[in-house]
């Protein structure tokens, strides 16, 4: 290989690239751009699209009502992007949104993408409100731009652990986690709280977020005769797990977090969902002012709520309320107003603490009875 030739071919290549793909869309006058990021391809697609739909519903509502900032009528526009649940892609997408001039971002879905992207939003000085990232580390970085509208793993895991021992009377507890940032974080906090409350952890087994076969770990757990099995993970695993648990004749209650507390879990677990207990941060939607209405509107437009759509919806409202208070969409001004948020969202009252976590962090527990999630109680 001769270097001269190499240089020529590299040069022609580079030229071709810099010539291709020019042309950028222009900004229309009074449009305020908001980003929404979640995985829209890959295994978590259904949950990702749910987030985007929740945000979109809020944006459409606000536009329909009309929004005025600084004496000008403005229109919100939602930029939905796909981060493929992958950290690298998340940063590219984050940068793309910053370039496009978004004033805020609702997202991302996973903790693993939210954390690396938060650095870019922080550098750009625009607020980021995640509807669903629950890893404690996200808001512990000291960024004044990072917010979330959902109880973090510590808050939810603690509530679940105490509930399991004190209210469900669990003594011998088996834990399964799916080794994702979410599942492992939640299971870890659950374990701490359950042990502190006097429960005994008799087994800790693991699976992954692609698995459908849990027979082996459930059989192993069965040998240790637990009276409660806690699963830190999402519905695609939880559903078949509930089935296999029953099939193996394992006499233990299944308990899960917000990843299980949804319609899809019920569909996947079928009749074996009966008796499963799961939590969801915030208050029950249908008991909130505007909650049933939200459900009706959402389902008319996009079908059943998967998981986090209400949180994405609330996140948009929290953001727009802050814009209204600031009477501006300028990120710096909005950031100054966000800490003062006090919103009655459809997922519960939303107030932020100094780190950007939701204050109070109420968690509601549900049980499946007669084929539907029924509220057990709300714990603080």
């Amino acid at each position, binding site marked *: 290989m001769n270097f001269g030739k190499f240089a020529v071919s590299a040069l022609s290549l580079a030229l071709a690239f810099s010539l291709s793909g020019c042309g950028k869309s222009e900004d229309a006058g009074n449009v305020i751009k908001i980003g929404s990021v979640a995985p829209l*391809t890959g295994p978590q697609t259904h949950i990702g699209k749910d987030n985007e739909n929740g945000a979109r519903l809020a944006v459409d509502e606000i536009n329909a009502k009309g929004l005025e900032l600084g004496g000008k009528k403005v229109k919100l526009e939602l930029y939905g992007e796909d981060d493929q649940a992958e950290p690298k892609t998340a940063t590219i997408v984050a940068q793309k949104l910053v370039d496009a001039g978004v004033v805020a971002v609702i997202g991302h879905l996973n903790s693993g993408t939210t954390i690396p992207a938060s650095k870019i939003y922080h550098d750009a000085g625009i607020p980021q409100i995640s509807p669903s990232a629950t890893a404690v580390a996200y808001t512990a970085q000291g960024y004044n731009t990072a917010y979330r509208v959902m109880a973090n793993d510590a808050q939810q895991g603690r509530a679940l652990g105490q509930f399991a021992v004190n209210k469900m009377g669990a003594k011998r507890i088996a834990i399964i986690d799916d*080794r994702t940032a979410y599942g492992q974080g939640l299971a870890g906090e659950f374990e701490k709280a359950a042990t502190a409350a006097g429960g005994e952890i008799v087994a800790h*087994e693991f699976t992954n977020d692609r698995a459908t076969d849990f027979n*082996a770990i459930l059989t*192993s757990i069965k040998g240790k005769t637990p009276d409660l099995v806690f699963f830190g993970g999402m519905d695609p695993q939880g559903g078949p797990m509930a089935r296999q648990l029953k099939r193996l004749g394992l006499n233990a209650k299944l308990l899960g977090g917000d990843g299980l507390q949804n319609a899809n879990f019920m569909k996947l677990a079928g009749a074996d969902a009966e008796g499963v207990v799961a939590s969801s941060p915030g208050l029950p939607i249908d008991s909130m002012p505007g909650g049933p209405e939200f459900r009706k509107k959402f389902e008319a437009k996009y079908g059943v709520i998967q998981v986090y759509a209400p949180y994405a919806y609330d996140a948009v409202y929290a953001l727009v309320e802050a814009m209204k208070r600031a009477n501006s969409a300028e990120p710096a001004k909005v950031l100054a107003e966000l800490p003062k948020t006090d919103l009655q969202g459809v997922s519960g009252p939303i107030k932020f603490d100094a780190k950007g976590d939701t204050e109070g962090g109420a968690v509601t527990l549900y049980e499946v009875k007669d084929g539907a999630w029924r509220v057990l109680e709300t714990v603080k």
Partner: protein
Amino acid sequence: MDIFLQQLVNGLVLGSIYALVALGYTMVYGILELINFAHGEVTMIGAMVALSVIGVLMGAAPDLPGVMVVLAGILVAIPACMALAFGIEKVAYRPLRKAPRLAPLITAIGVSIILQNLAMLIWGRQYVSFPPLLPVARFEFLGAHISLLQIVIVVLAVTIMAGLWLLVEKSRLGRAMRATAQSKEVAELMGVNVDRVISATFIIGAAIAAIAGVMVSAYYGLAHYYMGFMLGLKAFSAAVLGGIGNIAGAMLGGLLLGVIEALGAGYIGDITGGFLGSHYQDVFAFFVLILVLVFRPSGLLGERVANRA
């Protein structure tokens, strides 16, 4: 003891499914030396098509017995997958038969991506649940719980494998397949229509994959456009473990892999005091695979190939 037996049952059922999918990999590899990465996706399409048919039938004829509905689903899924595999081979692999070895591998990956995303467009991003149509009879045997479905899966898998073995060993087509696997050129000279044999191989593999796809979704109660990837990967590992290109090897590899995963997840954690628990389930599987290959570089039942690249 009941726990051990239960783990063994778990492993055998999982292993039968791996084995069925592995057959498709091994047959294609045996003839074309091609890792048909899209095979896992064919399995997924089989499950999805069957579920669509089942959904339609349940709406149209709610009185039909569940087993009939599922059978109808399988009967539509099989030709659908066969047609798909025929198409894939014709469009994506045949033009590359004389190309460098890795070129069809890349198209296989491309086809796999295309199928996944098409399935996502057609069937949506959601997990689709398998309706409870099949009888849920359960048996207890020495303390282990065995369901009727598990028995059906294992029996059906063994039957299919036996049938395939007979086909390859005894039939005219089977002989042509073996001849083509040994040498395409010579087989052609002997009057074998190589193109047709290769198409037949893909089609047979796809039919089995369709059945396996329905089995998986019935067994676990769900299907998803992404389900083919991991299943395909495991099945391919099983095929390699047994000796790729060898049909009996695929069966043995599949069953072994299933049992290793079950026993590994079930026991290693306790043996190592929790240090290597079930989070290393896949590690055990791959570790055994590597170990076997290091000592038997062409798999358990693979023939020793002469030392030639």
